[in-house]
């Protein structure tokens, strides 16, 4: 009976997780119908996850509870986000988003608590997150079928045509798919059935193809980081691990080469623009504020190693952060505070999670946030040192997602944005790590 109830809880959590990933993707969609649907339900579903996870935790009543630096630092960070409403430039927005972060962290902590020593339950959670990501990728194909214009961002003089699928821009969904890639590798390696292996290999290929078609270089690097951690921590001899890592690098190089194939539109010669001379009084048509700085009139060509205007945006965001250096402008105000004035850059945020935290919560926030990430890295190291078995495999999967997430944070502002479609895929596996580390330590202790 207890086993059946446990199974029901796990299934319910899986369903809510898939619904959350799908719904957050809807909330970040280019399609207005999906967008309205997603925005209506996103925080309600998050609350539902916290309630179900809390109920599961209460029902399990784990005798041993892993505590430690991660949960302490997560608590300090959430407290900081909430208190920042008192100096925020938009207190109401700060309060609601900090509340959402609290709910997500509580759900993650409850799941960590309830799944201690039960890798099969962790497996179910991670598998649900992967299924959610694959469904989002499949919905991208649906978008391509019903509306090519929405699913593909048209080519410009700066960018070639880029696949965005369901997302608002080409980087939106590819961010989620990059985080799901190591989970796919893990599920593929765990599966014994040939049919499932083929299905998972096809899913992985599909995720990789979607990222390549999006032209999102950050997502590709993030997926590589996750895959490398997954492969490098395998229970294999070092030479074999190196071979697998080299194979991942070869796939990465091939993906990058394919990304370079589509071309941006040729620049229109300036003479072609001249016509009857008439003063355009609306300055926004000739000199938009969003191109105030760095514009030379010559269209920027996106290159393999270029930052797509990010370097300038980061520099400006750092200067802006320096105006309120200690405590920042308030949690979740990044898009209100950052102003895109940079020619060639096209985003309402600086596209770097760490600089984003600096803008929102100042140096104090960055110190706490980086300390939290470091505590998670330490937990990941401890968790993957478990004796070979299902516990070690799920720990490697969570550690791989953490690596991909941290790398992606360098080119995307998303790590602390709970409404972002990738947030459950980052924080839930990450918060499972302390429990897995605690279990690994116990198993190692028993082994001696």
């Amino acid at each position, binding site marked *: 009976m207890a086993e059946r109830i446990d199974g029901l809880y796990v299934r319910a959590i899986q369903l809510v997780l898939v619904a959350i990933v799908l719904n957050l993707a809807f909330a970040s969609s280019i399609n207005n119908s999906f967008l309205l649907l997603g925005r209506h339900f996103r925080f309600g579903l998050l609350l539902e996850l916290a309630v179900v996870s809390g109920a599961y935790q209460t029902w399990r009543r784990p005798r041993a509870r892993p505590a430690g630096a991660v949960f302490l630092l997560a608590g*300090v960070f959430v*407290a*900081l986000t909430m*208190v*920042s409403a*008192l*100096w925020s*430039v*938009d207190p109401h927005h700060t309060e609601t988003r900090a509340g959402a972060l609290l709910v997500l962290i509580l759900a993650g902590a409850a799941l960590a608590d309830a799944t201690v020593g039960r890798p099969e339950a962790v497996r179910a959670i991670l598998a649900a997150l992967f299924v959610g990501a694959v469904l989002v990728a499949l919905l991208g194909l649906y978008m391509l079928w019903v509306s090519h214009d929405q699913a593909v961002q048209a080519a410009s003089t700066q960018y070639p045509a880029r696949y965005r699928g369901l997302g608002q821009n080409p980087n939106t969904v590819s961010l989620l798919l990059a985080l799901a890639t190591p989970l796919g590798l893990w599920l593929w390696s765990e599966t014994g059935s040939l049919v499932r292996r083929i299905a998972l290999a096809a899913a992985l290929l599909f995720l990789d193809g979607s990222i390549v078609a999006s032209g999102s270089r950050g997502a590709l690097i993030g997926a590589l980081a996750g895959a490398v951690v997954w492969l490098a921590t395998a229970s294999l001899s070092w030479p074999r691990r190196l071979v697998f890592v080299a194979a991942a690098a070869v796939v990465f190089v091939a993906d990058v080469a394919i990304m370079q194939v589509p071309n941006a539109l040729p620049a229109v010669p300036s003479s072609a623009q001249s016509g009857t001379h*008439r*003063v355009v*009084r*609306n*300055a*926004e048509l000739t*000199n938009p*504020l969003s191109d*105030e*700085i760095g514009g030379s009139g010559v269209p920027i060509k996106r290159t393999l190693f270029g930052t797509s205007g990010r370097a300038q945006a980061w520099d400006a965001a750092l200067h802006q952060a320096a*105006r*309120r*250096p*200690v*405590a*920042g*402008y*308030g949690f979740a*105000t990044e898009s*209100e*505070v950052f*102003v895109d*004035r940079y020619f060639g850059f096209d985003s309402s945020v600086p596209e770097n999670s760490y600089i984003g935290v600096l803008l929102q919560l*100042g140096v*104090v926030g960055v110190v706490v946030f980086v300390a939290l990430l470091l505590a998670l890295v330490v937990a990941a190291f401890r968790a993957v040192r478990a004796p070979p078995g299902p516990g070690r495999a799920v720990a490697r999967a969570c550690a791989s997602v953490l690596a991909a997430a941290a790398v992606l944070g360098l080119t995307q502002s998303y790590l602390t944005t709970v409404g972002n479609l990738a947030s459950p895929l980052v924080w839930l596996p990450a918060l499972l790590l302390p429990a897995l580390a605690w279990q690994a330590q116990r198993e190692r202790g028993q082994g001696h």
Partner: protein
Amino acid sequence: MRWAGPLVVVAAALIALGALVLVGRSEGRRHAREENRGIAQIRALVGPLDSPSLDRYRLLTDFSCLLYRRNGNAFALELCIDAEGRVVEAIDRRDRRHPRIFSIREDHSAATVRVDRAEVDRLIRKLEESP
């Protein structure tokens, strides 16, 4: 006595958060003061809003802007005004390479420089109708 240690930690955390609130609010006030000072300087450089040097306008979701000519530069000085007449951004582009930008657009309520919004609308309409 068992609770003394945790109580000290909680008290220290509360004091630290309280201090951070004071610092955060003080930083906010200082930032607003500096931006408003810059906006006021550019507002003074513009002179009357309906000055003959008014050359262009800009219509955005959150505010509208008026641009004034200086030494052949049609975009030299810019004032951006929200619906309530608060000047939330001002730009000095007399040195084209290094524009000076002062902005409080993230928190309109902190803007202290004000103009007559009805006049701004009238001037924009006039510019829209001009050849």
